[in-house]
């Protein structure tokens, strides 16, 4: 019997297109259902590419426990085919099937929620427009609907939230996205310019610029068979951890703001400033744009940068420990966080939650540990897990991850100290392996960022696919607010802090 899937143990990886098993749809269906019964398995990527006039579906599962990927594919007979939906059996695939439906018109029969994901400019059904989103509704004299957005009260990205409430209580929340769609994947697929692609990846999700640039850089390095120097790998991990620390502290400020604990807010805002100014000291940009590049770096870490990082981390670490200790011991704050916006472990597994959203529901899922990339495999990193699934858990996880990332950076720097300086500038003209499929995962501060590319016979990228962790996790927010007071929505939302532009691309 021929192989049903390719088992791959490295992240990132590149394999030739020919070697990916092509199953018939029934086989693809059965295999997916069978493998995904294992709760450690989640979908890293499931997307369609038009090849020879019909969509070919690639599915890549990631297993938390055996640290491997499983990759396989199927060919649909034509565009707008009708096939049985996997989401009925495996709920976490709902959003992947919706995306394929939206892009290619494939109908997934029996899909419980076959609704638009982001209204891309080249969607299969042009009659589907933002204004006529098919919202779920419930009839009842006691019920009312509340619509919020797309433009929100604060300075944040646009999205529309539609609540169905019974009095103050939320029965149901539906989130309509797509306002941020800028065709990033299409521009990346069509670009033949190595610099443009890098800079584009800095500018897709600005709050995760390092995570995105790193996903891109290691994908290109994998496609070209380039192994980054150890010192460069360490520098990238440090940049990624600085990004995590900065956002986690900033989110702690935002959580405090939402429960009117202004003291916590202003202290955390000032601490975040210290961290992002350190990133700016290193590379001239507070968000780390331009810091990560394939093949090398324009901002090779030096003694001055290292000393600055160590000094700031020591100071901020101490001060953040003091303020977070205060925040999480105040009854008035705890009353707003504890048992609010709960997601259970089985819900998290069902929806395929990743990153922080998973780790606060007792799911040990962290790409730094399960599919280590760059230098993480050699570090002592272990994921932190909380089990209450509420706003408090998401707050406490942030505080703990700030501490852990700080320690990790110190460890990384001592490893870096022992290495010879040997990094060079970036290489934008790496030649890529032809007729290949490549995939790269990075654990950004929200969770796993997946970049994947397919090349043609000359080694040009013909399809570029991105998956933000928010693509999985928006459903977690929708579930978290059920049976909550609608006034708790802001704090629930902030506790996830999901990305709109990452979803809409």
């Amino acid at each position, binding site marked *: 019997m021929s192989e049903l899937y390719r088992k791959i143990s490295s992240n990132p990886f590149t394999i030739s297109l020919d070697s990916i098993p092509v199953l018939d749809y029934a086989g693809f269906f059965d295999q997916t259902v069978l493998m995904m019964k294992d709760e450690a398995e989640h979908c890293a990527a499931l997307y369609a590419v038009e090849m020879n006039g019909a969509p070919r579906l690639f599915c890549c599962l990631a297993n938390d426990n055996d640290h491997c990927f499983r990759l396989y594919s199927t060919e649909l007979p034509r565009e707008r085919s009708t096939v049985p939906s996997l989401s009925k059996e495996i709920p976490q695939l709902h959003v992947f099937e919706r995306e394929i439906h939206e892009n290619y018109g494939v109908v997934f029969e029996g899909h419980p929620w076959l609704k638009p994901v982001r209204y891309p400019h080249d969607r299969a059904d042009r009659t589907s427009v933002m204004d006529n989103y098919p919202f779920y509704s419930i009839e009842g004299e006691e019920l009312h609907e509340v619509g919020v957005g797309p433009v929100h009260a604060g300075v944040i990205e*646009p999205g529309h939230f539609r609540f169905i409430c019974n009095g103050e209580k939320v029965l149901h929340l539906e989130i309509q996205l797509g306002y941020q769609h800028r065709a990033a994947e299409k521009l990346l697929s069509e670009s033949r310019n190595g610099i443009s692609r890098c800079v584009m990846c800095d500018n897709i999700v600005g709050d995760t610029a390092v995570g995105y640039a790193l996903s891109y850089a290691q994908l290109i390095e994998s496609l070209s068979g380039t192994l980054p120097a150890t010192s460069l790998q360490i520098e990238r991990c440090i940049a990624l951890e600085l990004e995590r620390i900065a956002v986690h502290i900033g989110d702690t400020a935002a959580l405090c703001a939402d429960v009117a604990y202004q003291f916590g807010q202003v202290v955390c805002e000032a601490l975040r400033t210290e961290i992002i100014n350190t990133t700016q000291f290193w590379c*001239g940009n507070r968000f780390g744009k331009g810091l990560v590049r394939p093949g090398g770096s324009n901002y090779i870490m030096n003694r001055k940068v290292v000393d600055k990082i160590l000094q700031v981390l020591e100071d901020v670490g101490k001060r953040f420990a003091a303020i977070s200790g205060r925040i999480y011991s105040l009854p008035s704050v705890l009353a707003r966080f504890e048992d609010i916006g709960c997601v259970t472990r089985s819900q998290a597994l069902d929806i395929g939650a990743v990153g922080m959203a998973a780790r606060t529901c007792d799911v040990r899922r962290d790409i730094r540990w399960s599919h280590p990339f760059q230098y993480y495999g050699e570090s002592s990193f272990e994921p932190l897990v909380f089990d209450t699934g509420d706003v408090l858990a998401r707050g406490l996880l942030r505080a703990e991850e700030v501490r852990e990332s700080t320690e990790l950076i110190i460890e990384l720097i001592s490893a870096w100290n022992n290495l010879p300086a040997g990094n060079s500038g970036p290489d934008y003209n790496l030649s890529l392996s032809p007729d290949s499929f490549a995939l790269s995962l990075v654990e950004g501060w929200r969770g796993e960022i997946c970049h994947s590319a397919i090349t043609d016979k000359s080694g040009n990228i013909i399809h570029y696919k991105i998956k933000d962790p928010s693509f999985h996790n928006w459903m977690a927010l929708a579930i978290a607010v059920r049976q909550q007071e609608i006034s708790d929505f802001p704090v629930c939302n902030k506790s996830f802090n999901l990305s709109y*532009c990452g979803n809409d691309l």
Partner: protein
Amino acid sequence: MYKEIKILRQHGIQYVKDLRRQPVSELFRGRPVISADITGKEIEIVSSLCPSGAIDDKSGAIDLGRCVFCRECEFCLREKIRFTNDYRIACSRREDLVISPGVDTPLRFDGNVVREEIRKIFRRSLKLRQVSAGGDNSCEMELNAAGNVNFDLGRHGVEFVASPRHADGIVITGPVSANMAEALRLTYEAVPDPKVIILAGTDAISGGMYAASPAIDRRFIEEHHIDLYVPGNPAHPLTFINGILDLLSIA
């Protein structure tokens, strides 16, 4: 309470005293300086590598309204192009964002192009509504930071508000995605007259990396008078704040 006081002492004084002259790190990518003796050949090289088409292929001038501040032109041509850390690069006339070779003077904010009513009415209080239209959330975070404990733009009566009805103008970020075009128009219409429009970040000014995207719709920007351009990727809080202070002619 005692614990809070202890934290406060640890915290020290956080606010930036002089928003006009606050130093930023040396590497910060602000106003570029292009050498007067850049050759035609060199111009050709850097203009073709520029990912956002910000460098004119004839004159070699850099348009800060298109520049995404990646600094790749400088890395390619270190002797001829240099990004300084001068963050005061916001202005009210689109042409003023174009930096020609040989120019190494701070950008001049020309107050004459500012509508008189702006200064008259908004000088002591300017309330803004922010619309993110395809922004990548970095500019949005920097605008939030402009009001934080460090930069405290609120000290000049400038604040972001939660409704266009309470606002004196809008600040747009992002290249204006087609899916946000209608919401942007509606928000602007809901702001009472007279009102200002500010573009924050290169994406908003020119589309930035998304200028060629089939999913954007920039008609709103083309059809309206823009009062302030704030370049940057993202626009630094100090760039935004200095632009606002110039717009309102606050010293």
